[in-house]
């Protein structure tokens, strides 16, 4: 029994030390990079023709329609009355928008710190009808919402931090 104790203790020690964080940050590695947006353009909203989805985000189903967020850029409106042949009807440009919900003829979305409401009675031509300013908390400007991660230190002169993206980065300086 005693003989087994030594290898067992060694195993425990190895297992424990294997998990201590690496103090030397790698030269190039995955790190969170701030996504910037210039504050002056952040409230610019417009309706566009249907377009290709670039960075698919959250979805909301309502009746014969599906609404899909395109991360940080807006919302696609999709008619699925014919489930085998869905048809996009419009795209709404909403800077830094990631959340959405629909009730009746109305679509609710976030636009950075604001809530915006659209009348979608005509799914080809959604119209913004209301903006509620400063109801949402902006993303933390100093660090990403994770712990034990490397990240690129934010630079306030580049604009407002609206989110964080995981990317390959050369010697990220900040750690949390």
């Amino acid at each position, binding site marked *: 029994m005693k003989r087994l104790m030594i290898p067992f203790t060694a195993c425990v020690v190895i297992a424990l030390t294997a*998990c201590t*964080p690496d103090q030397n940050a790698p030269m190039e590695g995955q790190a969170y990079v701030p996504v910037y947006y210039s504050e002056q353009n952040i409230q610019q909203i417009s309706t566009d023709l249907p377009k290709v*989805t670039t960075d*698919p*985000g*959250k*979805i*909301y*189903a*309502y*009746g*014969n*329609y*599906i609404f*899909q967020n395109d991360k940080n850029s807006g919302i696609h409106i*999709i008619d*699925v*009355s014919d*489930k*085998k*042949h*869905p048809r*996009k009807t419009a795209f709404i440009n909403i800077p830094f928008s*990631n*959340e*959405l*919900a*629909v*009730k*009746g*003829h*109305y679509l*609710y979305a*976030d636009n950075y710190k604001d*809530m915006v*409401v659209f*009348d*979608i*009675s005509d*799914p080809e031509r959604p119209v913004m*009808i*209301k903006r*509620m300013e400063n*109801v*949402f*908390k902006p993303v*933390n400007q100093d660090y990403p*919402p994770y712990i*034990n991660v490397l990240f690129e230190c934010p630079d306030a002169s580049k604009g407002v931090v609206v989110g964080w993206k995981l990317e390959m980065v050369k010697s990220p300086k900040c750690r949390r």
Partner: protein
Amino acid sequence: MKRNFTLIILSCLLMQCTKSSTSSSTLSTTASASTDGKGGSTARFAIAGNYLYSVDETSLKAFDISDPIHPVLKNTVSVGFSIETIFPFNDKLFIGSSTAVYIYSIQDPAKPAALGTALSPTVMRRCDPVVAKDTVAFATLRANAPCGGTRSILAVYDIKEITNPIEKGTLTLQEPYGLGYDDDVLYVCDKMVGLLVIDIRRPYNPVVIKTITDATFSDVIPYNHMLICWTDAGIKLYDISDNRNPVFLSNI
């Protein structure tokens, strides 16, 4: 007297007429079988009745949208830390954070009230989306941090006693994200494995029936016999008239 009586009857009839005409429903052109909308399990917005609820990292906000074009912020409630998702179920809200599932009552929709907190004894961190069904709640707990020290699971909670949720079942997963159910079938997105179709007739003993590996799945919304899947490439639609056997319909 007779005259009065006739008048009363007449006015009653008139009132009824006006009443029915004003209450003529404003049915949306977009609505079909189900008039309620539905978001995914990873959403931070949720609509319940005449209220829109939103969660940020630490708090829950209640917006009155009875006048849909003039939302009114009624309340901001401090909930916890690292909050990620909100899921409405009956008169309750299930809020998923990186450590726990918080349950709130919205019996008074303007004032969400804390009811209970569900913790998983097997997974101390990395709690994610949650959905509830009758007296059972399902949550995916993801542990993909390098030294998380715990495993990723689907946790099943008994919520009969809402103030004291108890974990009664688990299923080991790889890298789970969103989930949703249709009757007795649960769909779970696992970024490593695919879309898992899980039998929950015995909810505390979930059994995987099949795995769909067509894409990298993030979240699902079962809606009107249709499974709407959020994938890395866009949306995939499946017909779930036979909910144990999703049949591919289209890509968006």
